């Protein structure tokens, strides 16, 4: 069944000195879908992400990616396998132009990154692909702007373009809309929708309208454990979810 589910966890657990941030979480993420992870603050969503991308080492449990056990694989190698994350705080190379930002990612894939004796003009062969990616996320006019000078929402988009350049199969997005204005939220939401045709996406988000509109499946975490799972329409009626996450006044 490795084909149907791109990522699976079994009994994933993370303990911090006696405190269980994540406890016995088993997830199955279907290939080609948008899967959302929601839950109240401190439920363990970010910790889950950190476990999946190897920024933290699980206390127990296993992680299967494309049927392969990656529980003990190093962070950089996970990225090489096509499982790439974005950060909660925007992560770009500030003094590189948008084009260069994307090129750095392309370069990694196509070797030659240790070549200190060659001119960097060999990198120009990546320009076309980089522009294409920038175009995909609506940044073509920013190609030669340094990332530091771009507005917040655009940095977010640039980060996604950079991630796409790695040609991932699956992307993990942690609160991609945090701190964004409405305009940008809509843009990024549309972007995520568009790219989900090609990639599997797992995201954490508190913005309910985004979650409702985008996700195919939602897993609700509370106190480190899976509370329930299902499509939004189902969950929004679930009393437990209302109490733990949506709040009493939620319509």
């Amino acid at each position, binding site marked *: 069944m490795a084909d149907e589910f791109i990522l699976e966890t079994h009994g994933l657990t993370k303990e911090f000195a006696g405190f269980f941030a994540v406890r016995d979480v088993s997830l199955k993420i279907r290939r080609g879908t948008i899967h959302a992870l929601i839950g109240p603050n401190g439920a363990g969503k970010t910790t889950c992400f950190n476990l999946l*991308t190897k920024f933290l080492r699980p206390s127990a449990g296993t992680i299967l990616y494309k049927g392969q056990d990656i529980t003990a694989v190093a*962070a*950089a*190698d996970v*990225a*090489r396998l096509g499982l*790439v*994350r974005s*950060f909660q705080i925007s*992560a*770009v*190379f*500030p*003094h*590189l132009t948008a084009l*260069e*930002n994307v*090129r*750095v*990612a392309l*370069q*990694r*894939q196509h070797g*030659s*990154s*240790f*070549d*200190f*004796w*060659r*001119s*960097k003009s*060999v*990198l120009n062969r990546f320009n076309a692909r980089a522009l294409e990616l920038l175009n995909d996320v609506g940044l073509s006019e920013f190609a030669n702007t340094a990332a530091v000078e771009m507005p917040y929402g655009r940095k977010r988009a640039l980060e996604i373009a*950079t991630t796409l350049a*790695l040609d991932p199969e699956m992307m993990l997005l942690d609160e991609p809309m945090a701190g964004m204005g409405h305009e940008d939220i809509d843009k990024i939401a549309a972007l995520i929708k568009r790219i989900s045709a090609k990639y599997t996406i797992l995201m954490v988000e508190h913005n309910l309208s985004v979650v409702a509109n985008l996700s195919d499946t939602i897993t609700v975490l509370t106190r480190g454990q899976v509370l329930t799972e299902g499509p939004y329409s189902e969950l929004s009626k679930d009393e437990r979810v209302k109490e733990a996450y949506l709040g009493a006044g939620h319509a």
Partner: protein
Amino acid sequence: MTSITDATLPITPRAVRDEMIVFVIMAALLAIVPWTGLYPFFVMQALCFALLACAFNLLIGYGGLLSFGHAMFLGTAGYCSAHALKVWGLPPELGILVGIAGSFVLSVITGYISIRRQGIYFAMITLALSQLLYFIYLQAPFTHGEDGIQGIPQGRMFGILDLSKPTVLYYVVLVGFLAGFLLIFRTINSPFGEVLKSIRENEQRAISLGYKTDQYKLLAFILSGTLAGFAGALKVFVAQNASLTDVEVPMSGLIVLMTLVGGLGTVFGPVVGAFVIVGMQQYLAGFGQWVTVIQGTIFVACVLTFRRGVVGEIAHLFKRSL
């Protein structure tokens, strides 16, 4: 954390062209030195230090790593070359190769250890490692401890170039310097250089893109250390001795000072800085006792008011990359 180098300058094709023009002017100026009546030993010494500072700058300016122990490569290569020339009686070209090999091995080992930490820790680790090496060289018999290796034969390079003739030696050193400089220049503007820059900008992000950043930093460290060793090997022919001075902490400080004065992370800054500092040492020798105080004052003044260094300020003024 703000970066230690001026990253706001443009990195455009024009920048590379500007830099090439300046390079040609510099090479031409250096080539006519023997006809200017300038004391050639002074210029040769300055060239060795310039190459050394450039190698150091590769690490700090483009890798964001400040090594406070770069003298160890200078000294190690010097001892290796000197030993090869004097004891084994090797010809100059092989002597230089032995020196480079020595510093290469050292840089692999020390690099492997020190890139485990960043920032201030990295500086302290390199400092401590160089002190460790200093004590080893102080006790090792082949270095002759405090006395150093003296009276090293200059010999004939490739069997034809008589290095005991100042003019011949000068051009050999100049060619060595220019070759080293060009290699560094190329490294900065290579695919590898691009990755290095992005690691300096945001290491976490580089990791998440799948780069094993330690390997890149290690390569940068090895390149820097080995080139510093090349400078040390050349210096053996100029000074005709190899001594503990070249592995001591003050020497490492001097390298930092040269680069700082010229401009950290600028292409030509270290060269200018080396000439300024070596010149100062020569011509302020009369102040004798006050030289360390003057050096300290320059450090302080640079950090407080002149952080971009000579070349950095000029580059900033003209909004050009130099």
